């Protein structure tokens, strides 16, 4: 096991260490691991990365001001639009598509002199929890190559876990950044809905998702969120707040109020349970105050989440009809042509979700499904907000250890079940952090913390405290 945090690399660069050297170091990791892990769908040409490094070195030597992420290599999930590299969303539908514009978050990375190293693999259109549903190939978990890295931001998580990037941008619709973090011993923070601009994120469930910073430590995640967070005029759902600035002081265990929501704690398999309670009890013994609560409506969280996400997805994906995008039809009849382009372009799971989404929105069923789901969602949000006003919620990140590749694919219900603890934060629009707390049989296990709207600082402070207890900051495979 190795340890490397991005902020340390940044300090070394500022102290005069060569940027190209850092680029080479990361490229060496890619060289070593990428062939087996397959975290990236596209990688920037190494020569271009070196050139960017040289350019930054020149500026540093001249004493010029450089950005907050100068010289760091950032991997970007392939559902976030970039002009320099194609953006496929993990789908044949967009195989070869190059966006004519950069997502707002990418603009902000570049403005702070970060270097985008490549675009990471994901379940097609972010629909999945294992990254096996990528139209291209499954990504493997660097901690155990027979297992999945979680999804849908599995490429991002794996790129961090083997050291193939300093920081990464994922997206989180129902746990898509947090579940992979838990499976790869990395950190994922799903921000408050509206804190990070979605402009340029290829949507899956618009009302649920946020682009999410991912890294190997809490401090790194905070650093990345400071750069990408804050209001964007191009996203009407973005909140009118400035860029966040975080204190890196760990929280005191004493005085910390932690609520254990039964519905989000119970039901995990044994090794996961055990590590969870280890951490919670350690915090308690250091003076944190624990409270057990129940939120019965959470038993409906999973169907509520999937109903809303599928409905939004079915709508978002309507635009892929063979006119603007790579997958084409051949028929001269419009309806057939569209059918062909979509049949070829979309994978099975995407089609399944479109069908279910259309069903949930159709006349006669809409009230029973979509409208009912939005009502339950409000109830869930109200309960969560009531709770986060007085405590931080502790929850499992995943009910299971990272499954083996292929293990979950046949049964969609089993697949959906993996998100049971993470969808709550998306439904409520509140921030949630997943960080590593240990290993079981060599497989990473994470814990999840949930706070109130715009209370990312609380999560970061608590996360830093937990890191100091576990010693798991910056870990990656050898």
């Amino acid at each position, binding site marked *: 096991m190795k340890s490397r945090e991005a902020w340390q690399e940044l300090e070394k660069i500022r102290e005069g260490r060569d940027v190209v050297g850092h680029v080479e170091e990361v490229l060496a990791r890619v060289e070593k691991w990428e062939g087996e892990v397959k975290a990236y769908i596209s990688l920037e040409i190494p020569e271009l990365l070196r050139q960017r490094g040289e350019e930054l070195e020149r500026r540093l030597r001249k004493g010029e001001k450089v950005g907050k992420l100068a010289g760091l290599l950032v991997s970007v999930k392939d*559902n*976030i*639009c970039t002009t320099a590299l194609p*953006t496929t*969303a993990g789908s044949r539908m*967009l195989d070869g*598509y190059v*966006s*004519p*514009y950069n*997502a707002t978050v990418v603009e902000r990375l570049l403005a702070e002199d970060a270097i985008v190293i490549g675009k990471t693999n994901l379940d097609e259109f972010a629909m999945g929890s294992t990254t096996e549903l990528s139209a291209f190939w499954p990504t493997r978990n660097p901690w155990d190559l027979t297992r999945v890295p979680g999804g849908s931001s599995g490429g991002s998580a794996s790129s961090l876990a083997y050291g193939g990037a300093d920081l990464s941008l994922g997206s989180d619709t129902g746990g898509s950044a947090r579940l992979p973090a838990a499976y790869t011993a990395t950190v994922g923070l799903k921000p408050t809905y509206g804190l990070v601009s*979605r*402009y*340029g*994120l*290829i*949507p899956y*469930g*618009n*009302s649920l998702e946020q682009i999410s910073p991912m890294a190997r430590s809490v401090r790194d995640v905070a650093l990345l969120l400071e750069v990408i967070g804050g209001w964007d*005029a*191009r*996203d*009407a*759902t973005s909140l009118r707040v400035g860029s966040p600035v975080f204190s890196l002081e760990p929280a005191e265990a004493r005085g910390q109020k932690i609520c254990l929501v039964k519905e989000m704690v119970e039901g995990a398999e044994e090794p996961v349970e055990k590590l969870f309670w280890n951490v919670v009890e350690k915090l308690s013994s250091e003076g944190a105050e624990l409270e057990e609560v129940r939120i019965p409506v959470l038993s409906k969280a999973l169907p509520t989440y999937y109903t809303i996400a599928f*409905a*939004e997805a*079915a*709508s978002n994906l*309507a*635009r892929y*009809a063979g*006119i*603007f995008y790579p997958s084409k039809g051949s028929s001269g009849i*419009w*309806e057939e042509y*569209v059918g062909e382009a979509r049949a070829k372009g979309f994978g099975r799971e995407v089609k399944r979700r479109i069908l279910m989404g*259309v069903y949930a*929105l*159709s*006349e006669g069923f*809409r009230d029973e499904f*979509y*409208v009912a789901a*939005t009502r339950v969602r409000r109830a869930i949000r109200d309960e969560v907000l009531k709770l986060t006003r007085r405590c931080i919620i502790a929850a499992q990140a995943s009910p299971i250890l990272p499954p083996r590749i292929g293990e979950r694919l046949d049964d969609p219900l089993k697949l959906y079940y993996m998100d049971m603890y993470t969808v709550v934060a998306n439904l409520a629009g509140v921030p949630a952090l997943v960080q590593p707390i240990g290993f079981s049989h060599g497989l990473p296990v994470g814990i999840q913390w949930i706070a109130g709207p715009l209370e990312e600082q609380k999560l970061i402070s608590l996360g830093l405290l937990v890191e100091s207890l576990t010693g798991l900051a910056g870990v990656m495979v050898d």
Partner: protein
Amino acid sequence: MTEAGSKLFCNCKANYRGMEPNTNVCPVCIGLPGALPVVNRKSVELALAASLAFSCSTPEYIVFTRKHYFYPDLPKNYQISMYERAGGVPICRGGRVRYLDIHAWEWKECRLRRINIEEDPGKTVYGEGGILRSAEAYVDYNRSGVPLLEIITEPDLGSAREARQLVEYVLLVLEYLGVTNPRLEGAFRVDANVSVEGGERVEVKNIGSTLDVERAINYEIMRQSAILSSGGKVERETRHWDAERGSTRPLRQKEQEEDYLYFPDPDLPPIFLREMVDRARSLAALNDPSALFAQVVELGVSKEMAWSLVTTRPALELFLQSVKRGADPQLSARLIAVDYKGELREKNRDPYDPSSWPATEYVTELVRLVKEGVYTYDAVKGIVLPKLAENPMVDLKSVLPQRAENLDSIIDEVLKREERAVKDYLSGKAQAMNYLVGAVIKATGKKALDPRAIREAIEKRLGRGS
């Protein structure tokens, strides 16, 4: 909403006319992956003003809805529109239009069901052979995303003429509010639902002018009546108006309602109207054609002339300004609404373009000169107005007929010289006057003169005038 400035959800232009195909586009209005809509507030303000003008009950906030259907000119395959269910909130529910029946000069009322703000799709252009035979279809997205107001009435209209008058009046209100310029190509479209007693409702789409509203509905009434009277059945369907042929043809059978999968657009949070209401309300109050019409009639102007003024806004402005500066209302109205407007029409100049009209001082001066008897109205109409209509900026003095003062000495001279003609005239030979008038005109050097004024002046001189 041609006057909204930008498209509904991006910064491309609302008025796309005259642009090269697909040059008025951006990631948002062609719906590229990841691009997000942000509402153009001006469109909402204008729509709100329209809602208030039509006495709608306006909600506290509005919620845009996605309406799904697959069509090549609809880049996202959903249209951002409004809907009153599934969590959507349209800008207006209820409401009514009081419109003027200009044949009976009475106000009629038509209830509104709803007003929606929505984005226009792009435009499909077919190659040779048109929609039926062309192998190619070309799509131009310049129009895609342009803000539209969809105004839906209740079935309160009893004739094609009423429908036309309603549409004309609605367009007038929208023009006054600065929402649209109805004379721009494609500024509005009308779908007319026509049902004749004993038959189902038939929707006629693609009506592009107010004249065609009347034509299309009359055609449909005839067609449906003919079917019914020969014992046939009128089924529920959608038909297409063919303006060239002056007939409708079937578009699709509507066996059941299409399922548009409506749901609120998650990219667009509710927009609260409170901050906009005051401005919209005063905009609506200050630009109400019915109030302006009443104001003009109040000044003693005939309804016909008042309507002619109100339907040509620059004319109305000129009239109101002139009256404000003391000009006689009836004379001003006649000069502006009847004769000057007529001159513009004759010269093919645009009466809706303010630069086609002279300055207020010109009108007040002309009206004063007529009122004080310096010129007859006919002189102004026959000599001054045609020249002004050619160039409203021309120096007014240069187009006025010779002043009467200069004439006096010329007339004296001519009368002295033409003793015989004077005698003939005084002894009852009326034609002699024509000769005298001609002689005076000749003596002035053929300058632009009003013969009637000269005649009057001569008569006065000879003690015959009034």
